[in-house]
């Protein structure tokens, strides 16, 4: 791979990692939701993200051209090699946390993927076109939940506020550009995340403000996901997720 291909590969794996890690967290709600209906709904979101991960990884493997598969990428890298942004890997915590995180990434992806549809790379544009529809649908679910919990009981409001506090430091990384991502932006392949931040802040603050909940401007505080510097949660997730493949590598399942 030349430098450009390497950057593209890195980009695709990173987006795949974001998706696979979030899908894993969402799947942990299975049989644990507050309503049976929510088990199904969160499962649907998880399935959408697994689908994204597979598309990004498959294309990454194609770009790499070494015959690796999506599962090689997902199951045979350790936490220092995973490059997801940290917000995706945080434990599911309570339902409020899961929904606030989802609301945050839904707002982000609705705009990010919309712009990514203009990628000069047709495969990426096609993935984005499929995924943006999913994220719009996700947002239509996460917003009413935030509203109901923020304006429900004292306890639900407290939990929303705890979730905001917990997530505050992890939002900024969504908008952090690295050199290699910047060079993909210049080639018309990727999207400049940094430019999305202002609108994201405005949207989120307006929405939360309508329920009288305050959220400060997103600031970049905790970073490292793209360089494989994670929270301590990811390693535990991977030890479970990868156990079978690590135990019996190279087989058909």
């Amino acid at each position: 791979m030349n430098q450009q291909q390497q950057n593209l590969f890195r980009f695709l794996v990173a987006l795949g990692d974001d998706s696979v890690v979030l899908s894993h967290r969402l799947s942990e709600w299975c049989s644990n939701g507050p309503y049976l209906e929510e088990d199904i709904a969160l499962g649907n979101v998880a399935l959408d993200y697994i689908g994204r991960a597979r598309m990004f990884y498959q294309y990454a493997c194609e770009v790499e051209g070494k015959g690796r598969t999506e599962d090689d990428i997902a199951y045979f890298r350790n936490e220092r090699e995973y490059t997801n942004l940290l917000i995706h890997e945080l434990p599911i915590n309570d339902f409020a946390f899961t929904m606030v995180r989802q609301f945050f990434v839904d707002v982000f992806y609705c705009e990010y993927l919309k712009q990514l549809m203009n990628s000069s790379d047709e495969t990426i544009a096609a993935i984005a076109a499929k995924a943006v529809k999913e994220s719009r649908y996700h947002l239509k679910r996460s917003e009413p939940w935030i509203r109901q919990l923020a304006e429900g009981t004292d306890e639900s409001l407290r939990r929303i506020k705890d979730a905001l506090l917990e997530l505050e430091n992890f939002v900024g990384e969504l908008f952090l550009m690295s050199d290699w991502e910047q060079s993909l932006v210049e080639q018309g392949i990727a999207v400049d995340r940094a430019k999305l931040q202002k609108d994201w802040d405005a949207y989120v603050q307006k929405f939360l403000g309508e329920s009288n909940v305050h959220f400060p401007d997103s600031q970049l505080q905790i970073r490292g996901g793209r360089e494989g510097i994670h929270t301590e949660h990811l390693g535990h997730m991977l030890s479970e997720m990868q156990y079978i493949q690590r135990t019996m590598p190279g087989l058909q399942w």
Partner: protein
Amino acid sequence: MQSVDSAAEQAEFDRKIAEEQKIEPTDWMPDDYRKNLIRQMSQHAHSEVIGMQPEGNWITRAPTLRRKAVLLAKVQDEAGHGLYLYSATETLGISRSELIDALQTGKAKYASIFNYPTLSWADVGAIGWLVDGAAIVNQISLQRTSYGPYSRAMIRICKEESFHQRQGYEIMYALAKGTPEQKQMAQDAMNRFWWPSLMMFGPHDSESAHSGRSMKWKIKRQSNDDLRQKFIDQTVPQIEVLGLEMPDPEIKWNEERGHYDSGEINWEEFYQVINGSGPCNHQRIKHHKAAHDNGEWVREAVRAYRAKQNQKAAESAA
């Protein structure tokens, strides 16, 4: 007057049953018919819901992304079946929260097979193949059940279940044709789930407490033993295709009967597990309760939010 009416209604009900017409929620029905249906349908619904746990146990450890997606979708379908069956049961005049309460307090049962643990990835295959397979045999028969909403639920559910069964078999096939270690996983899983799958059809016809009346009312359409035989007959050739050893050494084609003969079920184990001593009975209900309790604040918030919205609407209307 009441008894004349009642006699007429009973006659009308009997006529419908005799003529294979469906009973619908608004129709008159005998109390015991209603109770029997509630028992059977809610047990069916609870089985779908509790059944999410043993398979859900492997979602986070599925060996490939594709398998993980398929498994997650399957467990979701079960949740969907649970919902659908709860709704169908509610047409009989009982609420979902009453049904859930009966489950959690042990008044209502669920399929005993979900009290066995899933101990390897192959168990996911075995459950899809054998447990869903046994369920389908039962459910196909129930498509002709006399209560309309239940019958329609069965028709809808059967389609998805056959899909699940194929996926389960596909997992078993990949393992059985894989390395010796994988084949061993498949053999072990089948061995453990074989007998509990046979037990899913319930006691022998001679021992079955509810069977006679259920057959009369056409809630049940075929006997436990007939359905069990049907399941064995369709499954044994599949075991042969997998190239696994038979889980029961007594399995043997009986030319004369035109069926497979097989060994006797350990009924002591059956009753032990039904009565709460299965490896996971306690865990399953505990898990269900914990999820339900942890969600209470969410449901409370939703109620509070709706009340506030209603109040606002009322105020602005006034």
